[in-house]
């Protein structure tokens, strides 16, 4: 069975490992290597990056030989929206306060689910935001403004 390299599980894993290894090695070239007696800050990272590249090459070659496909489908939509909801929470929290951050977070996160229903989104956001305010602001005393400027 022929498997496209773009969906070849171990080939991709190998590429990723080699990528991380090469990046790690390249960046560590700026740190003094030292010697085995006196390890510099570049010693450990370079050794690790080298090992990682070796594992990566092994995995990549094995991928070409065994040609196994990645199981299931890639969930790009939930991945994008879930991570966006975290980023949005952090970004908005700093600028507009706790409540706007929660609303944006719930909006993006529920959008990442299978079905989006306005009614459910509103109820969930209100109920969970109120419990969050109760637990974190009043219960644990975290010093956040509910809405910036108010």
């Amino acid at each position, binding site marked *: 069975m022929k498997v496209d390299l773009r969906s070849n*599980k*171990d080939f*991709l*894993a190998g590429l*990723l*490992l080699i990528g*991380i290894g090469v990046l*790690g090695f390249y*960046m*560590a070239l700026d*740190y*003094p290597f030292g010697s*085995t*007696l*006196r*390890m*510099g*800050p570049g010693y*450990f*990272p370079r050794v*690790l990056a080298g090992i*990682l590249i070796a*594992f990566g090459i*092994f*995995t990549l070659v*094995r991928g070409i030989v065994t040609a196994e496909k*990645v*199981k*299931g*489908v*890639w*969930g790009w939509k*939930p*991945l994008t929206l*879930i*991570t*966006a*909801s*975290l*980023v949005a*929470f*952090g970004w908005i*929290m*700093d600028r507009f306060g706790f409540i706007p*951050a*929660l609303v944006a*977070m*719930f909006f993006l*996160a*529920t959008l*990442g*689910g299978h079905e989006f229903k306005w009614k*459910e989104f509103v109820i*969930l956001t209100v109920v*969970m935001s109120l419990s*969050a305010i109760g637990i*974190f602001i009043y219960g*644990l*005393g*975290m010093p956040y403004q509910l809405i910036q400027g108010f």
Partner: protein
Amino acid sequence: MEIFNNLILGFSVALSLQNLLYCFIGVFVGTAIGVLPGVGPLVTIAVLLPITFNLAPIPALIMLAGIYYGAQYGGSTTSILMNLPGETSSVVTCIDGYQMARQGRAGPALAIAAVGSFAAGCVGTLLIVLFGPPIAEMALKFGAPEYFSLMLMALVAAACLAHGDMVKSLAMVVVGLMLGIVGTDVNSGMARYSFGISELTDGIGFTVVAVGLFAVSEIVKNLETAEQQHVFTKNIKDIMPTRKDLKDSTWPIVRGTAIGAFFGALPGTGPAISSFSTYMVEKKISKHPEKFGTGAIEGVAGPEAANNAAAQTAFIPTLTLGIPGSATMALMLGALTIQGIAPGPQVMTQKPDLFWGLIASMWIGNLMLVVLNLPLVGMWVQLLKIPYRWLFPSIIMFSAIGNYSINNSPMDLYLVAGMGILGYVLMKLECEPAPLILGFVLGPLMEENLRRALLISRGDPSVFFTRPISLAFMIASVVILIIMIMPAFRKKKEEAYEEGGDY
């Protein structure tokens, strides 16, 4: 009798009103979440970890430990009633537990699971009491070469014995070690892998990695495919097992406890492989192996005892050596570090109230579980009616607030998002994230001990092979590697993980 003094100290700490309350909260939350399919103990602890930041160290650890074994326990309920394992370690409980439930014997199955878990939990706690102090005492004599070799062995064992491909797991350890480097080098003051971002010069937060790798990627994976609605109505009548049930279960519980206690204390192995191995052992030595899979009570009793024993003894290396054997234990160790306590053998002597209080609380917590689980089983089952589409945004909320609150910095949340993407891609490519977090936790320690060992030996790497204890750890690492390369053993390991089907 030092043991008794220690236990008295422990119980006096654990029985304080505040600590009892946190133990109860932990066990309660843990059971509730363990019952929910798709949300395991790992995700729960990862998400709730930043919140315990605000508690004192003792209640924080008591609560986290409660969540851990509560979730371990709660998983058995859904396995038996609905054939839905809450986590890997309860997969085998499904096989015979669910068959028993279909035959109207859900009550005895649940009761035996509870009794077996409690008995195993007691033995596990006792083992920590007996073996903790001597191991810690021995470890206090370790120098840098011994520590380095021990950590190397732990990481090799974790990568080789954990679920999944060995080479990729070893590579994950290395990725974890590299992530651990991010930040300012203690010796030279140089910022490494910081990409010019000032927040990264303090290193990547532990909870950031844990939540990203385990919670975010798990949620995305669950959202890949359409949600399944589980409809069920089960009446649980007779809880009491018959005399024959008890007799049939006694030895499986004893054997399960022994197997679980052994695997729990080893790095890299834990509840999952313990319950699978116990099931295989019981099936092999049974006079009626054909009964397994059709509702044999031995197939519930043994594995349930095993996974709970392992959950307890996993604390031995974590608390006495400061070396976690599993991802969950790495999280517990992270909790210690967050509380400003350097993990290692000195914890027992410097913080005896914390150490013994935690252990006493585990016994109390196990007792609470028996009391909670059986009468409240109907209530736990109601939790399963919560649809996942309400659940996952709430988990994200806790993750977001928790991680933001540690440094009050949005950068931590951007990093959680990044770790989530990395974790998801690794999961799809079948690279296990568990060895990665172990590497991440041990990375800085490993570099420091390597540096020190080589300084002592004047740059001669043979120091790892000339000191006897260090040599023993090195030999053990090599032996584990060789054994796992041999096809026969590799097949056995895969069998052990796949006995329960394709989860």
